[in-house]
């Protein structure tokens, strides 16, 4: 049975070790934080200069001056600090983020990521911090459905959409599988959703899957 969105986020969260500084993209990536147990200290960084986010605020305890990159109200973890945008992206660009988790339109077997525009003539495309994170984070994991809503593969030999970053993805978490991107080789299956077969995943993938 394929993973649902929460299970995908939980599966990814399992692989995040204590002590990492992690930036979570908007959307499904943000859900990862809910699945890291509070006993495991992970430092969540947000582009707008928050280093060490805590859980969502309880009702009535929101601070309107405290939001994350998705503009959601947040709390601070103990040990949190603030920096301005230049310093926040110095941290990102400078390779100090252990892990960035982003959503994706397409991931290619050379590690290319497309996740910001669906054509060169996109109406007012929005890039945000995705290119900075793709270029700067130590590791980039993508979390996304394995195929588009109409069944086309999102895991491909080469991206067709405009790129966010070149050779930047290290791992992909989908509803069907966990795939490593290995330089010089391509996609290597690391894990399958319960009851999902390799053949089924390969059939829904636009690139060759390797098994170690």
């Amino acid at each position, binding site marked *: 049975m394929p993973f649902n969105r929460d299970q995908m986020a939980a599966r990814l969260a399992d692989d995040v070790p204590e002590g990492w500084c992690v930036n979570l993209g908007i959307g499904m990536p943000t859900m990862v934080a809910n699945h890291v147990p509070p006993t495991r200290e992970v430092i969540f960084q947000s582009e707008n200069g928050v280093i060490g986010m805590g859980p969502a605020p309880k009702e009535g305890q929101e601070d*309107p001056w405290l939001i994350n990159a998705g503009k959601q109200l947040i709390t601070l973890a103990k040990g949190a600090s603030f920096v301005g945008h*230049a310093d*926040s992206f110095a941290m990102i660009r400078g390779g100090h983020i252990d892990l960035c988790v982003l959503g994706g339109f397409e991931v290619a077997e050379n590690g290319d990521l497309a996740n910001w525009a669906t054509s060169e003539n996109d109406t007012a495309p929005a*890039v945000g911090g995705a290119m*900075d994170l793709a270029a700067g984070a130590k590791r980039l994991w993508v979390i996304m459905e394995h195929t588009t809503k109409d069944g086309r593969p999102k895991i491909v030999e080469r991206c067709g959409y405009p790129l966010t970053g070149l050779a930047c993805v290290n791992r992909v978490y989908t509803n069907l599988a966990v795939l490593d991107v290995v330089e010089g080789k391509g996609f290597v299956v690391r894990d399958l959703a319960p009851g999902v077969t390799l053949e089924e995943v390969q059939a829904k993938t636009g690139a060759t899957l390797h098994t170690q």
Partner: protein
Amino acid sequence: MINKIVQSVADALAGVKDGSTVLIGGFGSVGQPDVLIEGLIEQGAKDLTIVLNNAGSGRIGVAKLMDQGQVRKIVCSFPRSKDPVVFETLYREGKIELELVPQGTLAERIRAAGAGIPAFYTATAAGTLLARGKESREFDGKTYVMERALKADVALVEAWEADRWGNLVYRGSGGNFNPIMAMAAELTIAQAQHIRELGELHPHMIGTPGVYVNRVVQVDRGGDWLKPEQN
């Protein structure tokens, strides 16, 4: 006596010229100088290039500024929002120009302008559409894009506290683009919730030294708007 505090929003925005490049601080609504943006609409300067992270939402603030036809070009990283109708309409009709810049590159270009650095190299966007037309260059086997400083005529910023020297203290995540924007403009105008006596602000809490600030106007949103302080 140095006194950068002005008594009205109109005084704060006096002299902003048509054709100016205007930096507008904030990320989401936090640290966004909303009252100064309203003041700029009132003031009426036209043909503006505005630089900020988001292209506005709904029909207030920056969206209204665009809707009034005051904006020629917008430089931002994320023109999408919950309700970007004004920007998208103008953009589709070719009535507004868009320069899309990755968020970190936008921040660093603004900082560079403030720091006297005319250009720098970054790996961000290398090999993508957003590097088109830009010089690229290899350092130690990796490709980088050359980015230019983004200087401005005016910066509008929001702070939590200010004093008569123009020192600014930010609250929560309200710093974001504000400290670098304050550095990068000829004329930096701040709105602040609280005005403190000189010496009341802790030297290590000051996020923008007054040296960067030209005018401060107090904008008291009233106590009920505020939740318990945690800055």
